[in-house]
């Protein structure tokens, strides 16, 4: 009942109300790219971003000024989210830097494609103009997703940030190998990088409000709004168990997707990305689906530990909060 209330509540906005609406409008940069991908670039990125990103953003701007303050979601709050949103994708990109240095992953390869599609470049796509344009769209998407997260949650918690990060990982795991040509046969390191960088993104989501609160005091209005939200009780141990459970189940999803997507492609003699030796996941007899088993075990064990820890907390009314 409380979830339903939250979804439709005028006070809280709700996921079916303006929280959901603004989350969709402000995460629209991803929608533009999604259409570009699923049509196999039949729709240029400039067109898809015009209709599915620019127009939603233009709609969002006046709508933000109409937000009712009592919900806690105000124009000022959204401006704050806009600054918080910078941290998540910055950490995401930092996390991928060592993957290029140590494994040679060219994580910016699609930025050239995106830039070329937007600018309609003729000839080579490998120019700084295309790279810069592609980078801008990449930033916009990372920022848009962060905005969607902050708008959807009433309180930023490590667990919800990691759930969101896992959602993004799974989205990435599906869309890229299915619709993006150069990622058609991604090696395991690609899957690992996608997971690891979204993990960093989730940490950024969680960390940003803490950093900004440290350097900026809340106004009396904001303090009152914060006070309205019920005290949050979850120990560090419970949080850790819950995150590990989530990663375990994430490994299940990843292993199943890897098996389903990569195995469905025709075998290739080409070393796409050229990363040297095949990973253990591709050794004959050790099928990727088998990796779902330890994933499921990790998930179930830590889910059990989470529930047990939560139960204990409720009983002992723990005072150690995350």
């Amino acid at each position: 009942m409380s979830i339903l209330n939250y979804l439709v509540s005028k006070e809280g906005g709700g996921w079916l109300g303006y929280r959901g609406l603004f989350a969709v409008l402000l995460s629209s940069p991803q929608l533009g790219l999604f259409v570009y991908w699923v049509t196999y670039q039949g729709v240029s990125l400039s067109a898809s971003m015009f209709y599915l990103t620019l127009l939603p953003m233009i709609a969002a701007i006046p709508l933000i000024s109409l937000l009712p303050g009592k919900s806690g979601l105000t124009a000022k709050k959204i401006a704050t989210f806009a600054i918080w949103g910078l941290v998540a994708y910055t950490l995401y990109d930092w996390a991928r830097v060592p993957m290029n240095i140590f494994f040679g992953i060219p994580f910016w390869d699609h930025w050239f494609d995106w830039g070329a599609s937007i600018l309609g470049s003729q000839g080579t796509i490998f120019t700084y103009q295309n790279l810069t344009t592609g980078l801008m769209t990449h930033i916009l998407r990372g920022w848009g997703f962060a905005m969607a997260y902050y708008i959807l949650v009433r309180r930023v918690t490590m667990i919800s940030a990691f759930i969101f990060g896992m959602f993004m990982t799974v989205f990435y795991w599906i869309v890229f190998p299915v619709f993006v040509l150069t990622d058609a046969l991604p090696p395991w390191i690609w899957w690992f990088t996608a997971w690891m960088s979204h993990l960093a993104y989730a940490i950024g989501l969680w960390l940003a409000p803490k950093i900004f609160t440290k350097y900026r005091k809340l106004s009396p209005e904001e303090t009152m709004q914060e006070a309205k939200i019920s005290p949050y009780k979850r120990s560090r141990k419970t949080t850790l168990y819950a995150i590990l459970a989530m990663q375990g189940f994430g490994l299940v999803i990843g292993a199943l997707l890897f098996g389903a997507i990569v195995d469905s492609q025709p075998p290739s003699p080409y070393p796409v990305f050229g990363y040297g030796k095949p990973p253990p996941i591709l050794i004959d007899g050790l099928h990727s689906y088998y990796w779902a088993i330890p994933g499921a075990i990790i998930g179930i064990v830590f889910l059990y530990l989470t529930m047990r820890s939560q139960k204990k907390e409720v009983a002992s009314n723990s005072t150690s909060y995350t």
Partner: protein
Amino acid sequence: MRQRTALIVVILVLVYVGPYAFVFGRTATWTFPRIDERDFKAMDGVQSSVSSDANFTHISKVGNVQEAAYTLKAGVLNRKFLDWVGFPLVLEVNNFTFKGTGIYQNKIVFQCNHFETAFPKPTGKEPWYIYQPLVDKNDNTTISISCSGDAATINPANLGNVNFIWSISASLVGDRNEKLRSWNGSQQLLIKDLTSL
């Protein structure tokens, strides 16, 4: 206090732009040189191809002259290469120009002059299962070249072998580079008479 704030701001800005500075730096020092290296290696590895026989297909009347028509195959080989991320591509071949002259006992039997705007290649937008076979298919591309000459020069003796002198030029386009390549050669060409078929 102000100095501390300024320092924090500077650090935050550096943290923010850090990955992008890395990308642009790596693009200049790794991506582009790697692309250039692979492009030129691929372009230098391309070979010309001219068939060792030509088909004498028909005779037609052009004005007061009987003109003999021939066809042969010519093109380029080894277009396939791996790009900077190890992804298979085929070199774009544009403005393919073929010229050739068939000579028998110091007489010109036929001449060829062919221009092809662009050779076929995958667009890069196909799904992988379609793209991959297209890359293999377009690795070696030959096209049919039409040649013609005075039918009066044909006799049963020169229908066997003629000395064929040819030249090919084409613009090869890689990921980031373009190069004009040309080849010349001369070879014995076996003429097959298909007019009776």
